[in-house]
């Protein structure tokens, strides 16, 4: 399984780098890790473009209560859900995973990947 990852500069991206270093992302071939100023910037178009390569897109950002820009993570969650619905309706077999983690707490990242491995 080929993974691409996207994280916000504040929490997600550092968390992803740490996770990669600790071997958490070796559940599949991790292609690249991208960064964004804030998850709130995410759009369905961007997610679909990223999904051109790889089977799985992992998105990581600040936990919703502590998003530096207040609504970024909350909006991103809604957009990711919408994007996944569109993928499912269009019969495109790709998954977008969302994890809220920081560099200090990367447990969530492992957890969402675990779930995917269990039910691919």
């Amino acid at each position: 399984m080929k993974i691409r990852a996207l994280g916000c500069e504040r929490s997600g991206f550092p968390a992803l780098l740490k996770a990669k270093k600790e071997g958490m992302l070796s559940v599949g071939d991790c292609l690249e890790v991208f960064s964004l100023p804030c998850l709130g910037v995410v759009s369905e178009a961007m997610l679909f473009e990223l999904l051109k390569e790889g089977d799985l897109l992992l998105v990581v950002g600040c936990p919703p209560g502590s998003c530096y820009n207040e609504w970024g993570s909350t909006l991103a969650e809604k957009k990711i859900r919408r994007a996944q619905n569109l993928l499912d309706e269009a019969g495109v077999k790709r998954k977008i995973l969302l994890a809220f983690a920081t560099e200090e707490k990367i447990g969530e990242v492992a957890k969402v990947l675990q779930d995917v491995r269990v039910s691919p």
Partner: protein
Amino acid sequence: MIVGERKPIQEILAVLASSRRVLVLGCGACVTVCLSGGEREAHEVAALLNLRGYEAEYGVVERQCEKEFVMHAREAVTRAETVLSLACGVGVQTLAELFPRVPVFPGLDTTFMGAPLEVGLWEERCIGCGECIVHRFGGVCPVARCAKSLLNGPCGGSKNGRCEVRPERDCAWQLIYDRMKFLGRLEELLDIQPPKDWSPSRYGAQRKTIREDVRV
């Protein structure tokens, strides 16, 4: 503004069927504001179609109802096998008329003329009846906002300011009553409004507006 909602993706796929090269063309006006057919949305649909195996390109024109703007997309249109228009019904028809040889499909269900009340919320306000009488009702239009277009007061189904059709729907007459009360003009609601002349509306005939003073 004109509001529309994107058609379900399955409907779009069904209509595109076996085309390969698709141009998803958005419009920079109303449908951009209601987040259904602007450049971002056109990109979204094109990227999704690409994941589905199409060769989709996306673009946007300033206003898809105006010939001069639409012609800017001429090259992209002729490159495509099929065009999926994310404009309102007016834009789709304009495209179809200007490019009669290219199959043009609507990617949007055009719904109403309305206003953005909040981010992510648009509501109907006008149905283009052709003879505006909102001033008689304190600025709330019963023709568009009452489910039955009643002009002489609420029906028996108004409850807690909601319409019998759907509880999420405001009763326009409650709004009118409250507004006229606030304005101290309740008495005017006792005037009997005569039957509406629907001939200037869509029920008359296909409408045209001509301004001879600007035509050459």
